[in-house]
Each structure stands twice: as C-alpha cells, then as structure tokens.
C-alpha cells in the first residue's frame, strides 16, 4: 500500500509536466537544433548534394548589404509597432476603465467582444488600403495624397506597422484593462485628496502600478514583432518595395522558402533567435528590476 502511493507520488509531477515538456521539445528545441545544424550545411539548389561548410553561411550573411538593411528595417519596425501597439491600447484601456469603474464583472465581460473585433477589422483594413481596390486608398488619392505602398517605401512601412500594431492592440488592451481594474479605487481617491490632478495621478500612481503589466506586454510584443509579423508583411507588401519592409524574420522566410537557400536561411534564424534571447534577457535584467514593488 505504502509502496504504491510512494510510486504514484513520484510519477505524478512528471505526468503533469509531460505535455508541457513535450510541446516545448517538439516545437522549440527540435526545430532550434535543426536550424543550428542546418546553418552549417550548404545545399545545392536541387537539394541533391549537401556539404558541411562550418561558418560559411554566417560569413556570407554578414557580408550581405541586404542583411544589414533588414536589421535596420527590423529595428525601426519593431520600435514603431511596439510603441504604437502599447500606447494605443493603453489609451483605449484607460478610457474603457473610466466608464467601467464600479460597473461590476458582468459589464466588464461585455467589453471582450469589442477587444477582439480589431483582429477582424485589421483584415478589412488591409483591403481598404489596397492601392487599386481599397476604398481608403482611393479616398486618399482623391485628396491628392499619392498613396502607393507598392512603390513608396515610407507608405509601405507605415502600412505594415499599422497592420501589425493593430493586430496586437486587442491583446494588449485586455491586459491593460485588467491591470487598471485591479488598482484599488481608493488609491486614486487618496491621490486626488493629496492634490494630484488627473494627469499627475496617471503618471505617478496608475502608470507605475501598471508597469509590471506593461513590462510583460513589452516582452510579448517584441517577440511578436520579431517572429509573428511575416504573415502580414507577406500579405501586404511581400517585403518590398526594394526590401523596405523586409524584416529579419521575413528575410528568413523569403530566402528559405522562396530563394531555396536553406543553409543561409537557417543561419539567419539562428542569429534572429540569439537576438531575441539577448533582448529578453536584457529586459528581464534591467527593466524588471525597476518595475517591481
């Protein structure tokens, strides 16, 4: 009897962890290891012969001007998307919080569909800005704005930034709203009595209390921008014009899938992975220390 319960006690934690571990191994460690292995290989265009070339793929990568362009596009793109997605969702959440204060759980739940709607809207939105068919694009042209994301790199970048930020807003919004609702009303009232006007209340009380949420979202958003935006770029601009919207992850996809350069693409994804790991580590080390209270 005792032996059996001892046995169950030993196995249970592993059994509970197993699905998690399995998913992580299958979907993260295995592909990551494969990418690292692949980045040392050179394959001919038809995939017939494969040669182990050590760091040649990396050497080629870092002597490619297009790669440096992709790095700077990624930097601009990620800063713009993160700033836009975080600030717009925060603004919306603050407004929603004002009207939901004291309204109870039931009303708070009612807002959820509104938070999900932007995802659907985002797709429509891309159609509207499509230069030849989109109503908004035509409207812009009607007012003398020469809107053409297929030719103008500024237009192209703003379009993908808006589309990418838009997709992230609803997620951020829900987290910010939950964060705002968890700040006790009496804190805000105490600050009001303490002589802080609304703007000052926001920056000295609400925002610091929200910063753990903001920090979490910053990390999530950066990972999103780095990995999850190539679908949008592919749908809207195909990385063009002239590489103006080719981010690192889009280049991985483009060179590997479309260009057939598996080794080079693998080397790129290894670098990308390193960058994201480094960024996340930096965030945790330097920012998290400041936001904890």
């Amino acid at each position, binding site marked *: 009897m005792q032996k059996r319960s001892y046995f169950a006690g030993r196995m249970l934690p592993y059994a509970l962890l197993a699905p998690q571990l399995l998913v992580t191994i299958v979907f993260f460690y295995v592909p990551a290891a494969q990418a690292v292995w692949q980045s040392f290989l050179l394959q001919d265009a038809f995939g017939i012969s494969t040669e182990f070339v050590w760091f040649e793929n990396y050497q080629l990568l870092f002597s490619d001007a297009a790669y440096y362009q992709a790095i700077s596009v990624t930097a601009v793109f990620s800063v713009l998307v993160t700033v836009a997605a975080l600030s717009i969702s925060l603004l919306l959440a603050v407004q929603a919080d004002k009207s939901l204060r004291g309204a109870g759980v039931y009303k708070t739940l009612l807002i959820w569909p509104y938070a999900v709607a932007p995802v659907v809207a985002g797709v429509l939105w891309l159609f509207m800005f499509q230069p030849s068919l989109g109503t908004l694009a035509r409207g812009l042209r009607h007012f003398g704005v020469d809107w053409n994301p297929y030719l103008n790199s500024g237009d192209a970048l703003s379009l993908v930034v808006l589309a990418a930020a838009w997709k992230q807003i609803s997620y951020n919004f829900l987290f910010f709203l939950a964060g705002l609702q968890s700040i*006790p009303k*009496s*804190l805000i*009232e*105490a*600050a*009001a*009595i*303490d*002589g*802080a*006007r609304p703007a*000052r209340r926001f920056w*000295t*009380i609400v925002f*610091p*209390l929200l910063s753990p949420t903001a920090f979490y979202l910053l990390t999530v958003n950066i990972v999103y921008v780095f990995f999850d935006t190539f679908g949008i770029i592919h749908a809207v601009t195909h990385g063009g014009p002239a590489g103006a919207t080719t981010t690192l992850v889009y280049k991985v996809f483009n060179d590997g899938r479309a260009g057939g350069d598996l080794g080079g693409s693998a080397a790129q994804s290894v670098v990308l992975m390193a960058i994201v790991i480094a960024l996340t580590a930096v965030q945790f080390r330097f920012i998290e220390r400041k936001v904890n*209270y």
Partner: protein
Amino acid sequence: MAEVRLTSVGKIYSGAVPAVKDITFSVPDGGFCVLVGPSGCGKSTLLRMIAGLETITMGEIRISDRVVNTVEPMDRDIAMVFQNYALYPHMSVYDNMAYGLRNRKTPEPEISARVAEAARILELEPYLERRPRELSGGQRQRVAMGRAIVRQPQVFLFDEPLSNLDAKLRGAMRVEIKKLQRQLGVTSIYVTHDQLEAMTLADQLVVMNQGVVEQIGEPLSLYERPETVFVAQFIGAPPMNMIDLAPGGGGPKGLDGSSELPVPASGARLGIRPEHLVVDEDGRPVPTRPGDIRLELAVDAVEAVGAETYIHGRLGGDGLMITAREHGKMLLPPGTSRVFTARRENLHLFDAATGRRVDI
C-alpha cells in the same frame, strides 16, 4: 479655524433610493465628531461627500464658512484615512507621506522636516525607507495617519480606520488617535460601526440609521437619554432590554409595576439597561418605591467575567430573554427564579408606533 456645517444634505445614487436623506449638523472647530450606525446606513457616503469624492445631490456642505459643494477634493483642505489605508504600494513610507506636499510644491527641506516630525510622533522613524508591503497592519495604519497629518489640513476624515486591526491593537490605536487629535486640535469626522469606538472617541456622536440621523449629542447623553428605540438599542453593550407594553400599561407575565407608566394609546416599548436591573439577594428584597419595575426571571445562563456577571433569564419563566449585569461574582444556578428591580429614573419609555421617547 475650521467648522464643518452640513445643511439638509442628501445623496441619491443614480436614480435609486436615497442613500442619505436631509442631514443637518455641524462640527465645531477642533471637535471630534463620530458618525456611527449599522452597515449600509450611509456613513461612508456622507463622509465621502464631505471629502468631495461623491457629488452632493441635495443640500450644502460648508468648511470654515466656504460652501464646498463643487470644490475639488484637493482644494477642500482635508485629509482622509481610508479603511484599507490606500497607501501607494510603489513608494517608500517617506514618499507616501511626502507625496501630498510635493504635489503642492512644498520646498524639499520643509517636506523632510514635516515628515520627520510626523514620523517621530507616530514612531515610524525606523521604517521610512520601507515599502508598505513590508510593514505590519498597525504600522501601515500609522503611515496612513502620517500622510494625513503632514499635510496640516483643516479637517481630518476617517473611514473605519481601525477595522482591519485585531482587537488589542484597535484599542491601543483608538487611544493614540484621540491623543493625537487633542494635541493637533484639528476638526475630525470619524466613521465607524463599532459603538464602543464611537463612545470613547467622540465629543459629538451622530447616530445614523437608513440614511437619516437618529440622534446627535455627547456620547454619555445619548447613552443616558436615547431619543429613539434605535439609539437605545444601538448604544451600549450588551444592548438595552426592550419589553412591549399594551396601551393600558399591561405587560407580559412576570412584569410588575408597568401600569403606573404613561403608556400612549398606541402602546409602548419599555427599555431597561442590563446594569439597571438589581437582583434580590437571598431573602433580602430590594426596597421598592412607587413607580419601580419588578421582573421575575428564570435564570437561563450566567457569564461571570470577573469584575461583573451577566445573567440571562426568561421573563416570567418562559418569556422574553432579558439580560442583567451585576457587579462582582454572582453564581446563580441555572433554573432558579429571581426577582430583579429597575428604578423608575432608570426606565426608558418609547412610543410603539413612532419609536420615539415618551417622558415618564
């Protein structure tokens, strides 16, 4: 300096029933006013209207002769201590106290002088660099007090500031608050539902029930002369015994002498405080005078707490439960029947229909 005056103040939350109705009273400069009443009677609502955290639906509130109905909380020159303390969790104790002064652009040297003074009074000096979550409940409560006093406001408002503390600490803090208020001489309004806290703190006690004021006065005068049945039963522990009398003065079985009382046509309720019931010692009945009331109780339970004894018994053997409070030890065996006497001058009589006091 600051007198607080309320005139016909009322509050209706978004079209529903009124939370507070037609309240008029004033707190003199330096006075300590306690609002007391059962949960939901509108105490917090009234206090928050004085603070400016709720709009005033009806009437007028003045602080030192200025009508403040539409004045922002920050411009009313008040400080408030909240039930959950509402300390800023991301700031140190020092910054919590300094926040209000910084918002008002007080020079830093003066801020640190005032915070140091408050920390000295409240014995918070060792904790100035800590965050609120690193403090005990009592220490947090003192920080909340400190935040109020550094501002040197005209009025202190307290909303059940001690209700999150354990009984012993609550007693100690009660004494501290009273001492501090005397020392600083700041007009204070204090909300509680604990009648003991109310009795010990107040210069002026405002008893509220269902949004209206039942009675206002000094704690002891409310105790000795409650104007309504509600006040009579709310103030004092254990609560006053209430016995229903028929219009002619007839009472339940076991009650003697009530026909002498001026019972109104609608009937009456006779109130007797437990400590005013004196038991007949063995074979030595308490000498009665005309108008005294005698009750025969079958003893149900006896609680001896040392200095005094609570005797719970049923009137006339199986009737209403009556509580008597006697000095010293009095170990009556349960089941015995005893006669208790209440002096005429200690009786309270209320109209059964209106609940208001009737003079005897």
